[in-house]
């Protein structure tokens, strides 16, 4: 989905608030969120693609204003309700207030029928697609051309795996893009490498 979570290349942000040896957690409840969303994965309540997609489905204002661990928490709460582990009523009664949840998912999709294999050195183009459900191609590579520099063995196809749809695993291709191709005249010179699932690609001339 073309959501606000798709941050790569978005302008208007200020400086990275970096300090050396920065912390991961800033409050004890954050560790509990991390432990419990991982526990839910271990219990098979949902997989990591469903977890990521439930974060993406957060109401956009909520996504941008929430802290990292509030986003994790919202995904955990939403998926447990969607999977029937508990009801919204039970959760809110116990929490003593309302619990903001993610919005409903659009449908997922199986592998793209016309996908094909590539080899290192091939020029590939990222298909101009707008997938309504979960997708792991960032918007900034859509329609862009790059070169395959590495290939991994197959992974679950996220567009299906996040939606409980059966699909074949797919290799991901490490595709090298130049920033001059991604954002002509408006980026620092660099190569950007993205791990791109086979279904997202088509051959480039």
């Amino acid at each position, binding site marked *: 989905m073309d959501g606000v979570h798709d941050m790569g290349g978005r302008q208007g942000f200020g400086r990275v608030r970096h300090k050396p040896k920065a912390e991961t957690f800033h409050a004890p409840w954050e560790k509990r*969120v991390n432990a419990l969303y991982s526990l839910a994965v271990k219990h098979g309540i949902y997989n990591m693609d469903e977890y990521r997609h439930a974060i993406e489905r957060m109401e956009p204002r909520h996504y*941008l204003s929430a802290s990292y661990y509030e986003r994790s928490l919202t995904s955990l709460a939403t998926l447990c309700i969607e999977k029937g582990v508990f009801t919204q009523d039970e959760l809110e009664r116990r929490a003593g207030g309302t619990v903001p949840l993610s919005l409903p998912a659009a449908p997922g999709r199986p592998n793209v029928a016309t996908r094909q294999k590539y080899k290192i050195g091939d020029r590939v183009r990222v298909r101009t697609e707008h997938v309504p459900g979960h997708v792991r191609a960032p918007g900034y590579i859509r329609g862009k051309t790059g070169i395959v520099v590495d290939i*991994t063995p197959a992974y679950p196809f996220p567009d299906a795996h996040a939606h409980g749809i059966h699909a074949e695993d797919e290799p991901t291709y490490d595709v090298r893009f130049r920033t001059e191709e991604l954002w002509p005249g408006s980026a620092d010179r660099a190569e950007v490498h993205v791990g791109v699932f086979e279904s997202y690609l088509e051959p480039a001339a």
Partner: protein
Amino acid sequence: MPDTGHRQQETAPVERRIDAIEAIFEARGMNARAAIEEFEHTIEEKWLPENGARVVAKAWTDPAFKKRLMENGRAAVGELGLTMPPHHRHLIVKENTATLQNVICCTLCSCTAFTIIGLPPDWYKELEYRARVVRQSRTVLKEMGLDLPESVDIRVWDTTADTRYMILPERPARTAGWSEEQLAAIVTKDAMIGVARLA
């Protein structure tokens, strides 16, 4: 719909929300408390940047290990007793040199090789880094204290699949003859993400 009166209430604070989920999990026999304690133990004792630092130090001092690490990161770190979650099927190691700076990010969320280099720092997961580092890499690195000359090329690795990356930093010249332990002690998480160089 029965008993929706409580819906009129205020939004529950985040702590109360996770309290509620923890209590429900506990009531369902999912051993939430034990999982939390185990997680707290794991992040304090196991998922530490010292793991990656050992990998780096060994790669600096053992050319055969370095070769195996660059070819199959997951298997090579396993030689040191380090493991990765099943869904992290690959660990790809990229080497920084005098003329090349590799940098890791995850524009879509916050993916990292956390069992090896430690859980990601706060700024790595923040919107600023995710939005800007792919498009303004040199500017962002400079703002973060790493002012690279134009002669250094930059490669950004956006972690969009479940392949995980770590950076093998350039070994500082002053460390000639140091032991693996001495070397490991100077390797930072920032250097293994690629936003810092070691001096």
